[in-house]
């Protein structure tokens, strides 16, 4: 059975709205302009929270997958799928904003940066995972198979990151490290936006979870009725 949490959802959605408004205000009016990069640096305030929460989502897929194997409960399977969806959305947006940042800052759309490359590979892995889910592969054993994929995908993350870092260290990169010194106002802006995107993330995941959970209940009920009428 799927429990739903409408009050929590309302809370997160409201928090997302308030925080996002505050975050937008901070980005455009509060945070000072960066000296060398100018206004383009403001992409950072979207990019960082998106990247951060996509990794939280992928870790969530892993944790939910472990719970599927452990408890066998259907709700964890649904949650894993929902988190993977949110993770692919967020990592996709993080990649796009990162690429635009790269074009503006380093004059190239794509460069071999370990973090960037790791995010791209993760995007591929979890997109594939979603395609497999959508194809409903595995039949009755499907939930277990999806759980195994969810675990294997996450186990791969550190290896991908290490290999991406090693790969680059022999090929010296053209770019200098990201500007280290952020002013205190910038940090405040970063934190507000991180929280805002976190609230939005939670609201999206919860809303989708409710929908997906309900859909499964309805399908199960339809099957039951069909079986009854056939008898």
């Amino acid at each position, binding site marked *: 059975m799927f429990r739903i949490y409408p009050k929590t959802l309302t809370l997160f959605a409201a928090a997302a709205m308030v925080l996002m408004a505050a975050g937008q205000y901070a980005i455009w009016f509060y945070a000072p302009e960066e000296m060398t990069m*100018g*206004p*383009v640096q*403001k*992409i950072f305030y*979207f*990019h960082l929270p*998106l990247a951060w929460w996509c990794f939280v989502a992928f870790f969530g897929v892993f944790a939910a997958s472990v719970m599927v194997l452990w408890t066998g409960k259907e709700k964890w399977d649904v949650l894993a799928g929902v988190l993977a969806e949110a993770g692919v*959305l967020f990592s*996709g*947006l993080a990649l*796009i*904003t990162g690429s*635009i*940042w790269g*074009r*503006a800052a380093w004059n190239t759309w794509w460069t071999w940066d370990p973090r960037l490359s790791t995010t791209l590979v993760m995007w591929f892995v979890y997109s594939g995972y979603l395609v497999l889910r959508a194809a409903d592969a595995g039949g009755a054993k499907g939930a277990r198979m999806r759980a195994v994929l969810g675990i294997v995908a996450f186990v791969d993350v550190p290896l991908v990151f290490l290999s991406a870092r090693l790969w680059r260290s022999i090929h010296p990169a053209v770019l200098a490290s990201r500007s280290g010194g952020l002013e205190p106002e910038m940090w405040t802006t970063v934190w507000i936006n991180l929280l805002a995107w976190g609230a*939005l993330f939670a609201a*999206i995941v919860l*809303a*989708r979870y409710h*929908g*997906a959970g*309900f*859909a499964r209940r*309805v*399908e199960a*009920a*339809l099957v039951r*009725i069909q079986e*009854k*009428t056939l008898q």
Partner: protein
Amino acid sequence: MNYLFIANVCVWLGVGGYVLFLARQHSVLERRVRQLEILDADE
């Protein structure tokens, strides 16, 4: 400045698109629930 604008458009299009997808899923769900109610009334 242009790049900042493009990045913004991309992000909000992405989030908006996903919310639309959510809305569509919910309308599909509603249709199924109505089906369920009709079948239930038949019995």
